[in-house]
């Protein structure tokens, strides 16, 4: 009987978040006051406010949390952090949760912020420098060809003036600039990933 009750209340998901999510150990400190929820400028645009996400973690709602789009909608305005009476690093926890959901492959597939973040990461890690031309083009065509052309035409004046002021080079399309030791850079990233993966704890 007693062990039934204990099992009922044992919440592996909270422990999982504490172990694997950046700043996850703070989640238990939330007192559900609601200030972050009311302070988020985008709060009414997504389903789960930080307050709600933290309560869902404590309630063990693993699937709902990790597949939520909430963490991906955070614009890092830091309003919530500035006001949280418990000083939770809310913004960082939200990004930590997004990253964790992404690594587990549970993040919502067509979430635009996630798509862009993936594009950005792949673009950056290729040569150690962001190829803005390719990133820009990829961003324009993220939602299909027709839409992409429309967006690209609209953004043309901006692109032209960026080129004039040497902020954007058309030559980037040929491969673009990078850092000196790309393979060393890739080795560093690989090692970092290994370390991160080794730290990741298993929960069932």
């Amino acid at each position, binding site marked *: 009987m007693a062990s039934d009750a204990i099992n009922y209340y044992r919440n592996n998901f909270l422990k999982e978040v504490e172990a694997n999510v950046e700043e996850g150990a703070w989640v238990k400190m939330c007192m559900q006051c*609601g200030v972050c929820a009311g302070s988020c400028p985008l709060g009414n645009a997504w389903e789960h406010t930080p307050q709600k996400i933290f309560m869902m973690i404590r309630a063990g709602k693993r699937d709902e949390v990790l597949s939520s789009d909430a963490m991906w909608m955070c614009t890092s305005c830091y309003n919530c952090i500035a006001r949280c*009476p418990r000083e939770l690093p809310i913004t960082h926890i939200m990004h930590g949760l997004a990253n964790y959901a992404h690594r587990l492959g549970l993040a919502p597939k067509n979430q635009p912020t996630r798509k862009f973040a993936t594009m950005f990461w792949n673009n950056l890690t290729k040569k150690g420098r962001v190829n803005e031309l390719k990133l820009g083009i990829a961003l324009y065509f993220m939602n299909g060809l027709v839409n992409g052309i429309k967006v690209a035409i609209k953004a043309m004046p901006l692109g032209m003036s960026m080129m004039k002021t040497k902020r954007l080079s058309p030559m980037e399309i040929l491969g673009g600039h990078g850092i000196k030791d790309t393979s060393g850079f890739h080795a560093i990233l690989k090692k970092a990933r290994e370390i991160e993966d080794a730290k990741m704890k298993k929960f069932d």
Partner: protein
Amino acid sequence: MADIIATNETILVVGGGISGMTAALEAAEFGKQVILVEKSPSVGGRVGKLYKYFPKMCHPTCGMEINQRRLKMNPNLRLLTMTEVSSVEGEEGNYSVTLKTAPRYVNENCTACGACGDAVEAEFDNEHNYNLNKRKGAYLPSAMAHPQRYVLDPAIIGTPDATKAKEACKFDAIDLEMQEQETTLTVGAIIWATGWQPYDAAKIQPYGYDRIQNVITSVEFERMADPHGPTGGKLLRPSDNAEAKNVAFIQCAGSRDRNHLKHCSRICCMASLKQTHYVEDAYGDEGKSTIYYIDIRAIDRIDDFHQKVKANPNVTFTKSKVARIDENKGNGNPILRGVDTEGYHRYDNEHDLVVLAVGMEPSVSDFPVKVAVNENGYIEQDESNGGIFAAGCSTDALDVNRAVQSATASALRAIQVVNRVAGSEG
């Protein structure tokens, strides 16, 4: 002040609020010699600025009057108003303290007839009403001030107003030559009862206390409800003097918040529950109160007070820490924005008036003697304090009931010290 006799069997009490008065009276009625010093021109402290007391909803005058009478009658107790402690040296059983007394410019002849007040013209912010209205440059601090003696504001000294006041007095009570006095005394034990002050609401930036006229504090609301207060007891909003019938109370304004005061101020839930009565008393069923809270902490035996307010259909409870307040520029209404934790509903609620249940912090942060304080600045009961003890809200955020209990305890501790002195010398 050459007539003050103090020895190392004397107890010094600093602060004449309900706690300091209680500690001083307990010790004096026990037969000890006590000197009670109060910074302001009259005793009573913050309690004197409340309209009614929870939980019984009686007026502070009743309890206070009894204390004032006990004070007047006791030959062992000497009260010094407008006095502060500037230094303390020595050790348990033998302290040398220096007191500084500011000039009142009015002596014992004063009958509180008010002629000087009528004669002067200059006006100043009225501290008793948290600066919500003005008082004259010659004034009685409050209707029930003890001592019942006028004060001249130092700012009128040297101006024609000072001469007018002096000429108006038929009792030769005004002495414009009075100077600050310094007195050094020996005492055996000291009780700090310097109390609390409301947390500066302007620091809670999203609530706009410094920008939105109809956002006020709980202490100001107490003054508003009082017939002796700035609005003559009417609940009117500052922007347009319209009747405030739809009042929001925001709990934990500056308390339980690591950006402000970490501690729970403990009395503000009860204070807001009490203040919903003021709204209903003023406007009957038209008076609506909404309490925005994290959780209601109506301490132990007074939870039935909470339950009664909860059952009142004119009072709504919204479980939410309000995120921010904007002003409706059209009608001056504050708009409260946040998310209701029960159901996660987003709200944008307009009210006539917002009352911030501000937290309590210690009124003194820089004591003239080393005392142990906790992380919130309240004095700790600690051996290293020697013969120095604390009473009431200088030890913690307390209601009157607990403040008085703590005062009695501190009086007992001080009595033990002076008894030891007497024993070793006897």
